[in-house]
């Protein structure tokens, strides 16, 4: 009897293992009702035991998903299938991340989808994904403010003007006008295109200039559109009734509260032309990982996800504009008028180009828009500049597909790193060997204790540091690394686009002005706080530390909001005091953008200097000041001859630290001015960042690494120089 029990016990796990179906991992970036729908579908599917696999969901924030796929898949990690927009498809296809679906999927299957949603999923005539949904913008308006929606842009402007009141902050129309993605609506409406007939980027054209003029007209002449808009602002203004119309996408339906009276219609016709405004359309699709281990099952799962049943759930529960055509028949228009309106827009959309070249188009075009919208340049000037930049960057995109001789670069770097460590240990061994026997025992113990920390430092600091330096000698394209020696450095330093030296000078100026301000304000406050007669000293000290305690990126975001031209606190306060700053954009001009960054960073930086100064001040004996007073020294003489020299030993390291931190102050510059206008307020670090994440095919990591190494060398030189200077100062103080 007992043996039967044992047998049963042994069988259960094996039975369970036999029952366990292989897992198909699905990555997505859905939130809200879309996520709900997906989870519902997957749970349902997993309960169907006839399916030879289970699906495991992993939700990842939208911005992180792109990077994760690009980074993880080439290394053999990553999901089996994933859902994402189609615009990065070209990059991924080139990198060999995506599985071509020819022959894996029945051609008739594709006929079920709106043709506009399938087209963008082709790259070099190969199909790489199955469409799930389509997203584009349309005209969303508040039914309580607008009775009849406009059908032409003239009507739109008239309605908008009737609903705009600058005093109360009401706008007739709101959309993210500084983003090229949203501006494209007008661009295509005016008959413009991004690529010319030969497939090369050409933005310096008359129709695009006209569209820019139109956008400028809306913002600057008719003044019906606010400046510096982001997604949340659009939602907020619609929600509060501060905006009558908005150009936005289906995502806003999920974000608005249920009681807001809105309706959706397709975008209007451009007055004076026969064209309708045509927004970008994103085809949201499911891709199969070409490097996955269960491809047949993955393809099956992908097909199921795109198929009718899933489409119905996604449409009805997820409120997603699905690509499966017949699914819409089950949803009456009256039940979801907004969704149907987005569907109506579909035939007048332009799929976002999926070529790798497109990736580099966003930034320069955003720049051009910024210039035009702030009145800093004419559309022709802005487009000329954008075209110039594009030609520069894209020239680096069309790399010849030769196999590099060196793909094991990680091996090389690890070898170099290990060699350095071994050499280091050898030095240490040598030193130990020559030490006295007794001392040797002590030092051996010391090394043993510090070993764990040394290993941690090596892994977390030294090895990545060496790898970073090594990366600078390679050029990265879609996961492939080619050894190029010093080519990256050559390109940077020869000033291929003049950028490096301008940015270098700018960074130095930025650092010097900032540190000077931090030290003077910090020292002044410390002198004030040091008086024992001051009441409530501890309260002031705490209040003045708060800027330093708040994380810098939160500070940066708050200040950015305060610098908003129409809705920000800074302009409001300045206007009340008498300056003419109503609607002035801080980010339009290099000087004001720099000032905005400066103000934010100074707010962040003075507490540190204040604390250091205060500590040093309190260590100066009051007897010295009494002696000086008796000697007849004035307050200024006391400051110059006693306070300052005695503060120097504390201030020097503080200034050194402060200047290094300021030199590398990424958060403030990236978040407040964003390098605007036109990269003129970029620091070396933000520029390096842009090389890695905004330029180049698959990310110019090699260039970025070379850049970072240069920054390191500059700061190293500065530190050594300062150390030598203060070394001689120390001697002078003795």
């Amino acid at each position: 009897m007992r043996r039967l029990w044992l047998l049963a016990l042994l069988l259960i796990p094996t039975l369970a293992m036999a029952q366990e179906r292989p897992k198909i991992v699905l990555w997505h970036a859905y939130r809200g009702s879309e996520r709900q729908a997906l989870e519902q579908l997957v749970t349902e599917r997993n309960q169907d035991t006839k399916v030879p696999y289970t699906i495991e969901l992993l939700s990842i924030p939208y911005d992180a998903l792109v990077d994760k796929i690009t980074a993880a898949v080439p290394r053999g990690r990553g999901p089996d299938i994933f859902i994402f927009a189609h615009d990065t498809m070209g990059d991924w296809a080139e990198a060999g991340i995506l599985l071509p679906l020819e022959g894996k999927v029945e051609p008739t299957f594709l006929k079920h989808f709106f043709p506009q949603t399938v087209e963008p999923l082709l790259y070099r005539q190969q199909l790489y994904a199955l469409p799930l949904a389509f997203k584009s913008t349309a005209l969303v308006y508040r039914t309580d403010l607008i009775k009849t929606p406009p059908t032409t842009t003239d009507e739109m402007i008239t309605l908008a003007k009737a609903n705009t009141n600058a005093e109360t902050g009401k706008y007739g129309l709101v959309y993210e006008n500084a983003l090229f993605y949203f501006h494209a609506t007008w661009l295509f409406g005016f008959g413009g295109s991004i690529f010319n007939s030969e497939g090369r980027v050409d933005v310096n054209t008359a129709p695009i200039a006209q569209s820019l003029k139109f956008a400028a007209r809306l913002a600057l002449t008719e003044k019906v559109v606010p400046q510096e808009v982001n997604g949340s602002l659009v939602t907020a203004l619609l929600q509060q009734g501060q905006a009558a119309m908005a150009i936005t996408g289906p995502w806003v339906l999920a974000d608005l509260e249920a009681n807001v009276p809105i309706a959706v219609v397709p975008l209007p016709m451009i007055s004076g032309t026969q064209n309708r405004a045509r927004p970008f359309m994103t085809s949201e699709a499911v891709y199969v990982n070409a490097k996955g281990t269960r491809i047949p099952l993955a393809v099956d799962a992908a097909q199921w996800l795109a198929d009718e049943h899933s489409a119905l759930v996604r449409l009805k529960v997820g409120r997603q504009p699905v690509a499966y055509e017949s699914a819409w028949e089950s949803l009456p228009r009256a039940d979801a008028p907004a969704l149907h309106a987005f569907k109506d827009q579909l035939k007048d959309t332009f799929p976002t180009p999926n070529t790798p070249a497109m990736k580099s188009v966003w930034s320069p075009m955003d720049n051009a828009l910024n210039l035009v919208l702030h009145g800093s340049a004419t559309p022709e000037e802005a487009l000329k500049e954008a075209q110039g930049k594009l030609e520069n960057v894209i020239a680096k995109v069309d790399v010849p597909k030769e196999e590099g001789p060196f793909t094991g670069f990680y091996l090389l770097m690890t070898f170099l790193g290990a060699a350095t460590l071994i050499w280091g240990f050898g030095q240490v061994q040598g030193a130990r060997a020559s030490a006295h026997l007794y001392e040797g025992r002590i030092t051996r113990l010391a090394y043993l204790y510090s070993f764990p920390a040394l290993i941690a430092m090596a892994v977390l600091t030294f090895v990545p540091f060496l790898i970073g330096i090594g990366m600078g000698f390679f050029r990265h394209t879609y996961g492939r690394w080619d050894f190029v020696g010093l080519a990256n450095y050559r390109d940077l330093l020869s000033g291929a686009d003049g950028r490096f030296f301008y940015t270098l000078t700018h960074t130095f100026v930025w650092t010097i002005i900032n540190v000077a301000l931090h030290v003077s304000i910090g020292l002044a406050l410390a002198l004030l706080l040091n008086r024992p007669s001051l009441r409530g000293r501890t309260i002031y000290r705490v209040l003045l530390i708060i800027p330093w305690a708040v994380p810098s990126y939160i500070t940066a975001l708050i200040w950015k909001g305060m610098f908003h031209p129409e809705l920000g606190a800074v302009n409001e306060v300045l206007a009340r005091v008498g300056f003419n700053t109503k609607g002035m954009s801080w980010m339009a001009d290099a000087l004001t953008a720099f000032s905005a960054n400066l103000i934010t960073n100074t707010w962040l930086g003075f507490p540190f200097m204040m604390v250091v100064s205060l500590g040093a001040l309190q260590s100066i004996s009051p007897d010295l000041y009494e002696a000086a007073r008796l000697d007849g020294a004035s307050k200024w003489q006391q400051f110059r001859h006693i306070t300052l020299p005695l503060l120097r030993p504390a201030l020097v390291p503080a200034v050194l630290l402060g200047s290094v931190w300021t030199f590398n102050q990424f958060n403030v510059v990236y978040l407040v001015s964003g390098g605007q206008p036109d990269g003129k307020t970029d620091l070396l670090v933000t520029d390096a960042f842009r090389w890695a994440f905004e330029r180049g095919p698959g990310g110019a990591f090699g260039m970025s690494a070379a850049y970072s190494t240069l920054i390191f060398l500059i700061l190293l030189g500065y530190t050594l120089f300062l150390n030598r200077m203060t070394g001689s100062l120390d001697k002078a103080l003795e």
Partner: protein
Amino acid sequence: MASISFKGVAKSFADPAKKHAAPKVVVARLDLEIADGEFVVLVGPSGCGKSTTLRMIAGLEEPTSGELFIGNTRVNGMQPGDRDVAMVFQSYALYPHMSVFENIAFGLRVRKMADPEVQTRVKEAADILGLTELLHRKPNQLSGGQRQRVAMGRAIVRQPKAFLFDEPLSNLDAKLRGEVRAQIARLRRKLNTTTVYVTHDQVEAMTLADRVVVMNDGYVQQMGAPMEVYRKPANRFVAGFLGTPTMNFLSAKADGVGAKGQGFKLDNIRVPPGDLTVGIRPQQAVIGDDGQGLGDMDVEVVERLGAETYALGQLGGVHFTARVLGAEPAPGARVPVNVQNEGLHLFDSRGVRLEA
């Protein structure tokens, strides 16, 4: 050089934390005339108000009431730098980042004196104090005694109306103290500047002062030449403060002819009847039979100082110190103690001196 006058000066400090508490009185009332060229020592225990008095002369504190004159000028409210006085601090207060030369020269440079004259004066001061070889050094390369001399150099180079010394020898070890004390005495003979010197050490007071001002609890207890104050202390406090070892005090009752205390009887004491305190300096209380008997002492400790030997013990219920002239008593012995009439100091029930 100038005289210094305190006319009805008082000083109290209000505690900012306790707004409604009464301010703390540090100097109750001070009327003091210091003559031009005089060396006055303010002496007393901690908290008696002597440092505050000095700082009022310097201008680092302002009198709460009363008037202060330096020479003929009323200096209430005048900045320290304008009073033309120099101070030597207990902590030396040397500027650590400047050389000895620069430290001494600082006061002159601040007043924009021409460089050649600065050089002359500083070298002169260094000469007087024996600092010439040390002029290029920094304060942290000097010994305590050298630092104090630099502080003095800084004071004398300005040729001020008065020198103020704030316990300058407290931070020095015993041997150095003697050396620097002698240096100060030599300086005084050479320069003849009005000096106000604050200390809690009565040896410095006795040896350096032209006139001693004994202070306690914000009041002046007695002022006069050192020997006068020593021989004729005005009250019990002054009697107990000056003189080492400390004076012995015995309670007694006077009857008009003599006095009677615990275990002893004194003749020829012609003071009004009443309670009495009898003070006897240990130097005058001798073990033996010669003189008026004070009773028997139970010896506890014998201290041999080399030139003198003292026996400490209990007499009449109180601690007592007596001088050993003959054979040393063993600890635990009971010995008689006697005193000559001249060695008796008499104080009434309030502690005020009585003339026999």
